[in-house]
């Protein structure tokens, strides 16, 4: 073992979680066989992993013309990872001491560093100086960790230069630091990253990409807008003594001065109000809070508040803009006063204040710059697209270039002396209002992976032409003789389910659901599987689909197209004529779909009595059974809730929406849905029986009864009694809740009910008690997703479980690992949620594009009455809008009075209550370039000084409004 020294003992002292002091002894083996990874080296044994160039960064930097590698310290990696990721920054030398320090300082930065190092095209190399005989530095007694790390950085860089001194030309190593305070301690070539980047000859100025060093706060001279955060040690002690609580910070979408913190172990989330209490927490941060005594408890203010654009806090200098600051502070105080209110005792919710930040969860944010106020300043205010994120102060040299562009910004810090967080510009996406740029924004904002599939992924695809071999057929059940057909929306290319129906000789009925056998092509652990697992789901935008699997699979080999032989996973039931299930068998099969129908075509076949072919007869039979199944489900208390779904007719040339219509549903939609539910439930039972510890299932927890209160209250105002004791009574009473002459009342009630419910989630069966498996919305004790493996990764996993359960495939280690399954579930839950949000955002983006240059009057209904606004639903477009009742300047305020008990707004003779009908005018406010937004104004009833005159434009043609009734989870 010549390549390593005898072990050294490293002794460290640490404090355990319960406060004990522990001595930890670890061995450390120092080696001499660690390759330096430089192409200039002639000493190290040749290795495949040589990533640094022989003539690095020649003449790149004005201040350091010699050839050099750059060795950033940990602070630089943590703060300036975006710089290191920049393609023009090359030949980066990461020492392992630096990497370890980064891991301790910031996990997100470490993850990005890992990804960067994994990218073989980047000139970056990690040198394990911590384990090298000549570069290992032992911590001296009483030496701080930081200064030891700094020392080892210097030792390593010197060793590196020495190691390469025989190379022609021999390169230098330049240490980069984030601040100049360390420079004096380094007796090797070193520079601050700002000096270095400033002198770089790159194609675009990279200085903007850098995060600014944190401002030093002078306790005497700066004015503070926020109380200080507590030290971590104080927070930890406070958490232990239950003085403080830890939780995730959720900023309110509607009111920037309000947020909630969900604390584990508390029933109600804690309300945080006012900028002092919010104390610089940003959405998704993990914060420590202090809960106020009960007499200070309150309820959400019901106000809709947007961060005031005129409060220009772009400049931090207190002196010159003191006056303005004063004004804006008053304004803020006014708003906070407005938020104070008398609250009925039962509505009260715990309130509290943020005392410290445990973990920042800042990411990069998309948005626009607001035009600056003074000509000379380089400071701008950045308006994030996400309303939950505060405005950000940004300093940039390219301000003029970036006006009216969608840009990405990262937050660096939020000192006490600054009203707004301070950030820096990262990159540019495109023009505001340009559809591609806006699409890019919503994909980035929702963390949707949308790059092309990599070569490694594409290499996993089967070679074309793909032929069904006899060998494969032999392993499977042959269903090619059956009259199988698929029913999907028009234009669907990823057909993942097909059905068949036939009467058996004994008079019973055989029904089959055939799902594309995706797992035949996507083998566990390969690049394609990993990519699909990380994407989690296909994302549907209005004009775009971001596939989970490459097109060859999703649109061809796994798509059960009409007339083509395809591989499938089949679930076949034997039923009586009254849809009682006698037995179910699962198999891997080969099918040939007779016809790929649309919902409309299928409906026409069913209705056309002259057709008597096998497929049509089957469809009629299925339709009859589906009705029985559906009625039975209703009896069990399944909920049928409504949510408006919108589709756009898109111009084929410009891809701009030209017309909008809500999706229309036919009987056949329900037919397919019913059998998909049946298949999902049967499969869930099967895989849970075989894999009680690991099966991937889906559950929908019942909401606490109190969450229905707003709906019940609203219904009561219309003299209707709803009961929400359990799913059944709720669905029964919803069924009866009709008001003559108000066709949308019931639908709106259902929409409101949906809002009260919890999200359905995927979970690993071993992690949850059996009685918690239930799916509340579908009223079934167990459920999973099996029917759409082309577009959902959950279904892929379920297919694997099912295949293993019927001994048609083998299990593999990760499948039977609860930890891994739990991770998979968390990821797909997250991706699923994000995909939904992205879809909605896409709809609202297109709605906005659609109403650009239009003014349309439409019928609308009040959904919620807020303290200063009305939220209305416009059924025709499935659109929700907010009508502000009191504008920010007092001129237009015509004095709406809000009645908390009655949930109504009154002005003169007009009163608005939930469910009231009104006519509204929809238009797009384009007055400010950056902030196009949909504006809804009241046309009718007429309120002098508030309502607007009717538009003369005729409404664009659209299909009659229809609500989609969904079970929520097919």
């Amino acid at each position, binding site marked *: *073992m010549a390549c*390593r020294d*005898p*072990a050294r*003992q490293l002794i460290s002292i640490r404090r355990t979680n319960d406060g004990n002091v*522990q*001595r*930890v*002894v*670890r*061995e*450390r*083996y*120092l*080696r001499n066989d*660690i390759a330096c990874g430089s192409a200039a080296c002639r000493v190290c044994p040749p290795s495949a992993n040589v990533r640094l160039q022989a003539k690095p960064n020649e003449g790149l930097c004005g201040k350091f013309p010699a050839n050099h590698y750059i060795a950033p310290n940990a602070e630089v990696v943590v703060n300036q990872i975006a710089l290191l990721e920049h393609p023009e920054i090359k030949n980066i030398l*990461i020492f*392992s001491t630096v*990497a370890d320090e980064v*891991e301790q300082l910031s996990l997100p930065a470490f993850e990005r*560093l*890992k990804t960067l*190092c*994994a990218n073989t095209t980047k000139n970056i190399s*990690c*040198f*394990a100086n*911590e*384990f090298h005989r000549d570069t290992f530095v032992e911590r001296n007694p009483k030496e701080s960790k930081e200064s030891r790390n700094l020392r080892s950085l210097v030792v390593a860089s010197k060793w590196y230069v020495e190691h390469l001194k025989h190379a022609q030309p021999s390169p230098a190593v330049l240490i980069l630091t984030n601040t100049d305070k360390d420079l004096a301690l380094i007796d090797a070539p070193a520079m601050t990253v700002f000096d270095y980047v400033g002198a770089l000859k790159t194609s675009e100025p990279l200085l903007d990409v850098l995060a600014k060093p944190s401002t030093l706060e002078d306790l005497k001279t700066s004015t503070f807008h926020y109380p200080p955060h507590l030290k971590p040690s104080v927070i930890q002690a406070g958490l232990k003594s239950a003085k403080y609580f830890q939780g995730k910070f959720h900023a309110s979408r509607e009111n920037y001065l309000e947020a909630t913190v969900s604390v584990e172990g508390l029933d109600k989330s804690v309300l945080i109000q006012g900028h002092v209490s919010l104390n610089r927490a940003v959405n998704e941060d993990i914060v420590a809070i202090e809960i106020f005594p009960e007499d200070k408890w309150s309820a959400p203010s019901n106000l809709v508040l947007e961060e005031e654009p005129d409060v220009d806090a772009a400049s931090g200098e207190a002196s010159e803009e003191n006056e303005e600051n004063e004004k804006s502070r008053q304004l803020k105080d006014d708003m906070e006063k407005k938020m104070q209110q008398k609250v009925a005792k039962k509505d009260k919710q715990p309130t509290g204040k943020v005392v410290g930040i445990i973990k920042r969860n800042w990411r990069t944010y998309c948005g626009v710059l607001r035009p600056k106020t003074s000509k000379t300043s380089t400071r701008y205010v950045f308006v994030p697209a996400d309303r939950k994120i505060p405005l950000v102060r940004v300093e940039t040299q390219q301000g003029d270039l970036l006006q009216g562009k969608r840009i990405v910004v990262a937050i660096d810090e939020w000192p006490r002396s600054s009203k707004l967080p301070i950030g820096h510009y990262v990159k540019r996406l495109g023009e505001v209002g340009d559809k591609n740029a806006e699409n890019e924004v919503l994909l980035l904002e929702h963390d949707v992976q949308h790059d092309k599939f990599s070569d490694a992924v594409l290499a996993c695809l089967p070679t074309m032409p793909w032929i069904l071999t006899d060998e494969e057929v032999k392993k499977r059940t042959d269903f090619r003789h059956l009259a199988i057909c698929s029913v999907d929306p028009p234009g669907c290319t990823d057909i993942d389910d097909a059905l068949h129906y036939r009467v058996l000789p004994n008079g019973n009925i055989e029904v089959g659901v055939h799902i594309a056998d995706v797992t035949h092509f996507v083998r566990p652990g390969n690049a394609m599987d990993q990519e699909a697992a990380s994407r989690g789901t296909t994302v549907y935008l209005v004009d775009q689909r971001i596939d989970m699997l490459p097109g060859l699979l999703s649109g061809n080999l796994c798509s059960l197209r009409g007339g083509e032989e395809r591989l499938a996973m089949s679930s076949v039931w034997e039923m009586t004529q009254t849809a009682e299930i006698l037995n179910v068998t699962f198999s891997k099969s080969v099918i040939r779909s007779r016809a790929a129908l649309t919902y409309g075509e299928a409906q026409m076949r069913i209705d056309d009595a002259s057709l008597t072919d096998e497929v049509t007869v089957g469809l009629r039979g299925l339709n009859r059974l589906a009705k029985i199944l559906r009625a039975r489900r209703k009896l069990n208390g399944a909920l049928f809730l409504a949510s408006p779904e919108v589709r756009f007719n898109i111009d084929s040339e410009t891809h701009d929406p030209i017309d909008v219509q809500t999706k229309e549903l036919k009987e056949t939609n329900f037919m397919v849905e019913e059998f998909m539910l049946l298949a999902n439930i049967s499969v869930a039972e099967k895989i849970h029986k075989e894999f009680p510890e690991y099966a991937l299932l889906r559950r929908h927890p019942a909401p606490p009864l109190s969450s229905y209160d707003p709906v019940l209250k609203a219904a009561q105002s219309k003299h209707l009694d709803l009961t929400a004791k359990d799913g059944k009574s709720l669905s029964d009473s919803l069924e009866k809740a009709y008001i003559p002459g108000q066709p949308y009342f019931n639908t709106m009630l259902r929409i409101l009910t949906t809002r009260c419910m919890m999200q359905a989630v995927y979970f690993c069966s071993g992690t949850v008690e059996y009685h918690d498996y239930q799916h509340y919305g579908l009223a079934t004790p167990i459920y999973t997703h099996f029917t759409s493996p082309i577009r959902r990764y959950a279904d892929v996993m379920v297919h694997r479980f099912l295949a293993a359960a019927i001994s048609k495939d*083998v*299990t*593999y*280690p*990760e*499948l*039977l*690992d609860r930890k891994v399954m739990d991770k998979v579930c968390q990821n797909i839950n997250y991706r699923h949620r994000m995909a939904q949000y992205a879809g909605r955002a896409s709809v609202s983006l297109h709605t906005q594009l659609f109403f650009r240059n239009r003014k349309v009057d439409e019928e609308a209904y009040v959904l919620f009455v807020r303290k200063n606004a009305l939220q209305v639903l416009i059924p025709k477009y499935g659109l929700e809008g907010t009508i502000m009742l009191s504008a920010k300047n007092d001129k237009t305020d015509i004095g709406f009075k809000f009645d908390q008990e009655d949930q109504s707004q009154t002005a003169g003779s007009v009163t608005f209550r939930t469910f009231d009908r009104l006519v509204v005018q929809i238009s797009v406010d384009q007055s400010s370039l950056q902030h196009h937004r949909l504006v809804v104004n009241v046309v009718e009833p007429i309120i002098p000084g508030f309502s607007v005159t009717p538009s003369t434009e005729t409404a664009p043609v659209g299909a009659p409004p229809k609500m989609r009734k969904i079970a929520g989870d097919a």
Partner: protein
Amino acid sequence: MELISPLTGLRRDGRREDEIRDIKCHFGVAKDADGSVLFEQGNTKILATVFGPSDAGENDDDDGDLDLLEDPSGLECEFKLSAFSQQDRRTGQGDDPRADEYSEYMEMCYKVVMFPHKNENSVVKVTCQVLQADGSHLAAALTAGTLALIDAGIQIKDLIVGCTTTIIDGKALVDISSHEELQRLPQVTVGVIARSGEIIVMDMKNRFHKDLLNPILAASLAGSGKIFEEVEAIVREHVKNSAPNFTT
């Protein structure tokens, strides 16, 4: 903290995946015993002592205990984890719950390499006391016990060595330290006759998928081979020192 650094590919103590820790050995440390050895495998330190062969004596308790008859090798093994061996001093609870099981394993191993007919009516007692615990206890105890037997001059056919292996992300780590034992990863300990690759005992910890067994076993055997090489050299050296005229 990951067990294998994603950036450098080294384990946390600087070893590569397939490397074992340093092995050190002092013979004859307990003068009262017939054979003893202080065996160090990294920071796992084991005092192995052998008493015997000694007279098994009359089976004077007349409870019909036929243990000795059933067990002609007359081998008694004991595995002990000292209270002070780990970071949190173990008190109260007594022995490692698995100590009995481990003692059994030791017995099974040594029985295979000893010559039972040579030790008729006698008993050999092997005790492995873990003085400092830093992972792979059973494996180290199996190796240490063999060395103590050699020191006691008891004839054995071949050396038994032990090796504990785990697997993470498809990479097998041999001779794991306590730090690497912490996560509940699949763990396999084998006691083998390394020359022939014959597995005498195999102990598995934490539930894992059968597909992982083959790679773990292969790595374990490879690791045992490395341990055997070192131990064999140590034994030869020891024999050379203590009996200079005895040539092998």
